[in-house]
């Protein structure tokens, strides 16, 4: 649609699924992670245009990920 890719990191599966359901149609590529390490790994691999980070994430928290990026 608008050629944007998105990464979403959220440890709550229900919230993750619902959010992806609602936002998925606005992005061409969507990837998701349930912990900080995986999120960072996906970021380096896919370089998404938009990232949504939950603050309370296992392994590395959202704020630290933002700092690293």
């Amino acid at each position, binding site marked *: 649609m608008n050629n944007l890719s998105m990464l979403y990191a959220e440890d709550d599966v*229900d*919230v993750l699924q*619902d959010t992806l*359901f*609602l936002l998925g149609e606005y992005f061409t590529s969507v990837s998701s992670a349930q912990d900080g390490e995986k999120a960072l790994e996906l970021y380096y691999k896919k370089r998404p245009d938009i990232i949504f980070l939950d603050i*309370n994430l296992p392994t590395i*928290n959202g704020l630290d990920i933002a700092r690293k990026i």
Partner: protein
Amino acid sequence: MKTLLILISIVYLHASQNTTNTTTYFEQKDITQDIDIYSVNFTLLNPNKSNFGFTTSIFWIKVELINDTKLQTKKVLHFPCTQLDYIDIYESVQNRLIIRRETGDLRVYNNDGFLTDPSYFVQLLPKERKTFFIKVQTQGSMYLKLNVLNYDDYVNSGVIKSQILMFYIGAIFIMLIYNFMLYLYIRDRSYLFYVLFHLDYMFFSLAFNGFAFTYFWSSLPYINNFAMPFFISMGSILAVAFTIDFLNVKGNTPKIYKLLRSLILVNIVATILIFILSYRETILIVCLISLISLTVILISSLHSHIYSKNQNAKFFALAWGFLLIGLFIVSLKSLGLLPTNLFTSYAAFIGAFIELVLLSSALAYRYKLQSEEIVKKDLTLLRQSRFASMGEMITNIAHQWRQPLHRIGLSLSVIDSVLQDDSPDRSRIDNKLQSSQDNLQYMSDTIDDFNSYFKVDKFQENFNLYKILKKAKNLLESRLKGIVIKMPKDKIIEVYGYQNEYLQVVLVILNNAIDNFIIKNIERREISLSISSDQDSVYLDISDSGGGIYKNNIDKVFDPYYTTKFRDEGTGIGLYMAKMLIEQSISGELSVRNDVDGASFRIKTDKR
């Protein structure tokens, strides 16, 4: 009735002048010259005006004893005053004076009979007549009272007099022990001053009544010169110190505090003067300063009662008032301004006794007020801690509700989005409805947990420790994110006590551990809970990886209002309340030590 008899006997002992004997006196004003006692004029001694106050004169008493009966009799020359310095008893034999007895309180104890008063026994044959000249010299008050008693009367009334004195001293002693025990128990400094004052007063009474001389220092009569003034001025110092402490004068009325402090100094100077000046001078100085001290004490206590609304000061003023009145009467008597009689002689002792009883009650009353205040303070603390934990719980609930609310919001958005499709996916809608239902149930459960936590336990009961820990974990769920909680393996052990109070203690310890992780920014956050037990007790150990408590603070963690957190983060009553709850309402023990990784709290409770 018995009391009445005793009183009558005492009055009798004082008033008993054998009327068949005549007692006359002569005042020798010039004491440097010898006089011919047979050529001077003796005046009849009025028993109601026998106090001549302070004087430098020598007083001579002439007494003639006649035995009218046909039997041999025994008479007693008895001075009802123990304070006369020198008493020389001469018998007149063929117009010559023969010394029979040298006594008085500045001589080695030398009296007949069992009373502490100077006494001399005289044997009279049938129809015999004896004349005695008694020379009296004293630096104190010249109380020239001489009783001539039949031996039987002396014994009968003397026994009662001794008994009353012993009873009096015994009562003072018992009260002294009572107050001393209270001091040991309460450790209140006012009690110590009071006990010392009491002890001093007991010695004063012993010295005044001649007991101390008769039984403690009978061969060291010069002590009598210092004993009375010393005990009076020491009593004065202790009474003032006691007043300062008891009425908290320093904090309440600084001006009166300064005045009382200078009175102590004046009394100390007077105490030193006792060993420098003569008895006559020191007893006057000491009595005067004591009366001033007592008056100031009385005024301070009235002031404290009126201005500081100190209820205790009322007792205090009343008590000292009695002693003051008693001492005034005795002082006026000593100066010869009041007649010497039973009442004026013992007024100070009666006043002092009332004072002792009233002050002991005042101290006990004060202790009661203090205990009530402590209970009140503890209740306030309990309430504060409940409020504090209520605040924490509300924060927890808010945290815990945020996530389900978010989920429900998302579910509604999903349902809305699905319903906009031409052919809505029914199963997705059902799925979201169910999920919302679950989330609402979870929120409702949170409220239930919250409610049961604030419900006050009425009974002690056996409860499953694991369940309590599980509940604590649930209540703190939102705060425990990122923290590894190691639950105990033992899931069946039970503890006896108040469930919610135990839970409150666990929450306080867990919350402290979490706060510590945050404040110290600890990376590896781990709390391990372990249960162990022996025959009678169950131990719950809560250990964290927060680095432990600083060595200097470890003794203070259970003190009220002690906190290492920032002012707005901690009230400092959590652990104090936790300890109180465990030790007072569950009769367990709460202790802390430092482990390798961090602090380790141990709750010990009864197994039942």
